[in-house]
């Protein structure tokens, strides 16, 4: 039934490794993850691949397919010319654990530095009232499945690990934007977005938006508006305070300490 295709899969751990050639069967309608699973079941029982839902919902199976960052479970084999070999490599920005699996702990560390949702403590359970139009922006960002493909592709840290301590990456700059745009949040993360999380390093190339499997407009809807908010705070704090003073505390919310455990 199936046809054969050539797959060149990166195998190895830590620093050492290289591409290994395989010939595998492919059937109609299959995605790259199906073929990797067939490799595991028939030729390479110990091939390390991270996956979970096989439905594009969990963001586990991120890798680079012919050099493009993608979810293996949502990449159909019919996309490729059967005559050409398909090259599969791990995400480049993160250290390889083994084969196609990378160490993404950088992302979890950044997540823990961003001050959490801070509602007004006087609002009781079930008493939040928010209009659909007002939550839609935050909802768009909350579609994020944390595949970290945008983190992987952003040139600020891709091949520049030295920038990692000072830069949260698109996923987490967007998390800041999400909280700032949440109608019931009272913290102010604009100063730290710029000073601690490196919003200024982003030069809006939109590479992150291009690879986002959820189609989130990271650059246009999160990063650029966030940059605007940061500017407005810098140059016109009085105007801003006038508008927000009723709800927001006067102070900038500080970054959470104790990043790495």
């Amino acid at each position, binding site marked *: 039934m199936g046809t054969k295709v050539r797959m060149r899969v990166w195998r190895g751990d830590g620093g050492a490794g290289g591409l290994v050639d395989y010939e595998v069967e492919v059937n109609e309608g299959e995605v790259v993850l199906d073929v990797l699973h067939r490799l595991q*079941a028939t030729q390479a029982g110990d091939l390390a691949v991270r996956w979970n839902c096989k439905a594009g919902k969990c963001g*586990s199976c991120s890798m680079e397919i012919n050099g493009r960052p993608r979810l293996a479970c949502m990449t159909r084999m019919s996309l490729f010319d059967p005559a050409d070999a398909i090259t599969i490599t791990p995400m480049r920005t993160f250290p390889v654990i*083994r084969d196609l699996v990378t160490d993404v702990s950088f992302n979890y560390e950044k*997540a823990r530095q961003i001050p*959490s949702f801070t509602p007004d403590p006087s609002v009781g359970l079930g008493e939040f009232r928010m*209009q*659909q139009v007002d939550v839609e922006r935050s909802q768009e960002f909350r579609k994020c499945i944390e595949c970290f493909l945008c983190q992987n592709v952003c040139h600020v840290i891709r091949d520049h690990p030295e920038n990692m301590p000072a830069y949260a990456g698109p996923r987490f700059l967007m998390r800041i934007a999400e909280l700032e745009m949440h109608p019931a949040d009272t913290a102010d993360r604009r100063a730290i977005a710029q000073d601690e999380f490196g919003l200024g390093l982003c030069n809006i190339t939109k590479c992150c938006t291009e690879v986002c499997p959820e189609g989130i407009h990271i650059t246009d809807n999160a990063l650029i508006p966030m940059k605007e908010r940061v500017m407005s705070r810098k140059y016109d704090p009085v105007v801003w305070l006038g508008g927000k003073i009723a709800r927001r505390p006067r102070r900038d919310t500080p970054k*959470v300490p104790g990043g790495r455990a």
Partner: protein
Amino acid sequence: MTDIDEAAQVARLPYDVVVIGAGGSGLRAAIEARMAGKRTAIISKSLFGKAHTVMAEGGCAAAMGNVNPHDNWMVHFRDTMRGGKFLNNWRMAELHAKEAPERVWELEAWGAVFDRTGDGKISQRNFGGHTYPRLAHVGDRTGLEMIRTLQQKVVALQQEDAVRLGDPEAMIKVFAETTITRLLKDGGKIAGAFGYVRETGGFVVFEAPAVVLATGGIGKVFKVTSNSWEYTGDGHALALLAGATLLNMEFVQFHPTHMVWPPSVRGLLVTESVRGDGGVLRNSEGRRYMFDYVPDVFRAQYAETEEEADRWYTDPDNNRRPPELLPRDEVARANNAEVKAGRGSPHGGVYLDIASRLPAAEILRRLPSMYHQFKELADVDITKEPMEVGPAQHYVMGGVEVDADTGASVVPGLFAAGEVSGGMHGSNRLGGNSLSDLLVFGRRAGLGAAEYVDSLAGGRPAVTDEAIAAAAGEALAPLRRMSGENPYTVHGEVQEVMSGLVGIIRREDEIKTALAELERLRERAASVRAEGGLAYNPGWHLALDLRNIMLIAECVALAALERTESRGGHTREDFPEMSPEWRRINLICSLDGGRVRLRRQEMPPMREDLLALFDRAELKKYMTDEELPPAAEPADGEGTH
């Protein structure tokens, strides 16, 4: 490394409460344990935030009454009992219906951003078996919202600890990509858990007097399933192996609508929201056949004509519900029957049509992931053509027998919550009742575990080196064997047996054949060989999961053979009727000398005030005469809908 000396080298991590599982129930349990001041570990086979809960689409059921003010906990309780065909642990169904709204509001206070009603409250949608719009939701990605919110709440607690104690992980820590293979005991009590770290293959021991199982379901026992690789019944098996009991494992939910084509996505869920939002099922002749499949017990609540059914979407108070929204077991059986009768679609499914029912823009707004899923994976545009769908394994109602209020199993120190626990959903779960179950009973199990730890005072159970050595020896066995079968082959055969012979429709002779096959497979499973080394080796992991898969397959088959009636997620072709005598019987699995034992256990009678929430006439359809309340008017003035 069966050596005791080497066992002494294994890292021992002391905690108060260890939660196995980072889905909705596990995270909610861990949050509660940490808020009760307990040092808590969360262990998960996958990365933080990726557990199966992330896949839930439709919503989370809670009688908040935001859309229809008639809704309240009593209506929700009744719907849940009806959906489960009255076999539910009624105390769990009661707690669930009462506490779900508060649990959902709590999520909102932790940052969840649900879809809103016109007056700014949390919006609620219709779902099968629910009388009123009841499911809090975010488009069709509610599970993602829930898991991300709980994940972010864990992070918020860690941030508090970073400020307060100087270490974010002082009180609550996540051990991702770590798999527990054994629970450890001291005498009769839980003393900890043993596992391996996926990344290195190194072993770890968690020393803790209380363990909460929150490991989810058993989908990978079957061939066609909406569940991911994590669902190998680990928690069910760990509980059995530790001396706990499993309840009603014959009740397996086959959800009616999954993708059937192309083969690589067979089993991918098509959310019930499609039907809740107006989608209808048709056969190859174009007939809307669900009207032909309304069973007697539900006749009064469902529309008899297409016209009435269609009016219900806009005027639910004066019309009855469309039969597409019957509980899942009914719809799954109907779909199955249509295909068997030769009225299926080209790829062995039936048609689910939303295209002719809603404008394209509305479909895109309400069901974005469904649109995406069909477009990307099957080249089908659901705003223009019907979907081809069929049933697949989706959920297991059976699970660890627990105390409703605390989640405690029969083993001191062992708790369970979420899909791994049993009883709440009876013989069939209503859509949306799982996400709320995770919150209600996750919290209760976390609290139960914390209180249990307090009750021990200083005297904590201890983990011995012998126990660690035995667990390590068991884990290493597949790697040490010089020869043996490939674990993938054996797993595939177990799945064939279970799907083919103990699937959606069951018969005595087939189940017996399955048990004989499983007996043969047991030996093969026990001697599989994994190639490669310790680090991130999926073949080895599957070899270890096989023990659990085999145990659970046997439990399901034994219980399915024993229960000679049809009810909810258990359909016996040779015993098609529902029996009031069987309604009072729970089937309990335990382990005895390594073999599964099955026994019957009578269900405690429902509390009178709960019984009074139903019409006597309705109860009569389910219960024996002696169980019925004396013939009088129901106490609840509202009656039933």
